[in-house]
């Protein structure tokens, strides 16, 4: 019940925040720009529309995830709001899970809004919906949740919100480059740099698993079971990350 309270309150707070409206306007403008660009080309307007539209949804999702992740708990620690909350009959577990689930709901709503904007643009342009449109959107959503969880993880033990946000952004970049990191370290001879790269490769989330945007935009065949495999990977990775966050948060001293 208290988890639900925190969850609902996180959603309520976010929709009162100016950042939400900025994110929304950015998303709409980006998709409209894609529409304008596609209307200037004679051929493959749908591909351009989808390419830009998916990028907009992904960027908006990741920015929202980082912002949300550092603010839902980090801001409450920084402003000492958490003191009055945790001195009430509330467990740290309920608080953390409630906040995270609220963040996941907020991310879901922003993804639905931006996906709907893209759908609307496709419809105005009289274009059909590609196969895999839904799968691409679901995977982008899961990817942004992982970044949200990382931002929350950092904000529970790093006092600077800016540093937490930067680290979450770094994880995103590493995750997106995981296949490049893998190929570099495979080609390297045994050295400390190779060992470091392999550690980075295994620890950073493999975010390429969540990227089928190009395949959908260019109407290429999707790898079989990509949605199922990526979802299982997402659940396993996020469970580990949330467990680690809970363990750190339970022991945290609020100084």
């Amino acid at each position, binding site marked *: *019940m*208290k988890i639900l*309270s925190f969850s609902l*309150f996180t959603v309520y*707070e976010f929709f*009162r*925040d100016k950042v939400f409206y900025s994110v929304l306007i950015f998303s709409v403008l980006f998709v409209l720009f894609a529409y304008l660009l596609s209307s200037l080309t004679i051929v493959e307007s749908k591909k351009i529309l989808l390419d830009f539209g998916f990028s907009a949804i992904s960027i908006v999702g990741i920015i929202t995830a980082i912002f949300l992740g550092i603010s839902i708990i980090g801001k409450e620690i920084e*402003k*000492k*709001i958490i*003191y*009055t*909350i*945790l*001195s*009430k*009959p*509330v*467990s740290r577990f309920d608080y953390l899970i409630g906040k995270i689930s609220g963040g996941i709901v907020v991310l879901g709503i922003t993804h639905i809004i931006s996906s709907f904007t893209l759908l609307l643009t496709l419809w105005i342009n009289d274009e059909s919906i590609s196969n895999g449109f839904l799968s691409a959107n679901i995977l982008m959503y899961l990817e942004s949740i992982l970044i949200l969880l990382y931002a929350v993880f950092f904000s529970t033990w790093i006092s600077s919100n800016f540093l937490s946000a930067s680290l979450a952004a770094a994880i995103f970049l590493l995750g997106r480059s995981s296949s490049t990191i893998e190929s570099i370290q495979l080609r390297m001879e045994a050295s400390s740099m190779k060992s470091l790269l392999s550690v980075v490769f295994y620890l950073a989330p493999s975010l390429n698993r969540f990227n089928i945007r190009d395949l959908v935009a260019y109407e290429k065949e999707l790898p079989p079971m990509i949605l199922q495999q990526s979802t299982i990977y997402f659940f396993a990775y996020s469970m580990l990350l949330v467990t680690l966050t809970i363990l750190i948060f339970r*022991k945290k*001293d*609020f*100084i």
Partner: protein
Amino acid sequence: MQNSLAIEFKDLSKIYKVGFWGKKQTALEELTLSVQKNSIFGFLGANGAGKTTSIKILLGLQRQDKGECKIFGNSNLTSEVKANLGFLPERPYFHDGLTAYAFLNFHRSLYGKHLKKNIPTNDELLKLVGLSNTSGKTIRNFSKGMMQRIGIAQTLINDPELIILDEPMSGLDPVGRKEVRDIILSLKKKGKTIFFSTHILSDVENICDHFAFLEKGKLKYHGGVKDALSKMSAELEVIFSIETLPSDPLLKTAVKLGSQWMLTNVDPELINEIILKIIQNNGKIISLNNNKSLENFLFSEKEKNKI
């Protein structure tokens, strides 16, 4: 036997590691003190004395390195124990997009099944803290004093037996401080225990039954306010202005303070005579004070190396 203590600290110690190299800094050193139920307890000390650290440990926001603390005899801070206490942190900040009503509703929801019956409504709480006419205003637009008062209101949602306030008067103007003092006194009348930290001696002197004085993490004094004041002599201090100081044995110890004169350690038996002498010599009494203040008490204890 029923426990008559609301709070107990026993040998509580805390060391912080500060800076890049983790240099150790003692925040609390074997703090042992207790707070009686249905009393107002002032937790005195300068900034950095360890007051907030003690409160945070008591509320489970930090862990101690040594010792233990109890609330109503419980060393485990269970939900039942937490449901019976209210806490206002120092310089509070709340979700500022909320109105006072929405804010209180959110905090009310945190009690869940531990919410007591017949507890005050939002209207009653807002009336108690003097915020009745702010229902449509968001916390973002509250003044510092209003923020403090809405903070006190959230501590009283579940009609707790113990109210812990960390520097509740800090940053408030004299009117705001008096209002907070009045709220604390009204809570005591309802049988509550109020434990508050402060560095303002007069706040403790005016409303507290007991107090503790903390310095650099160490407890220097712990006792009743009345007891402490009764240990002070009844000697008086007179400040007066006069054109020429007469050579009278009663006034010979007067010390010049700018354009005024000050007589200290005056025997109360002689005060009428001294005042008469000053007036007869065209002088004017500026102030007449006694030594019975906590400030003088703590200074005299320090001089005697007792603390």
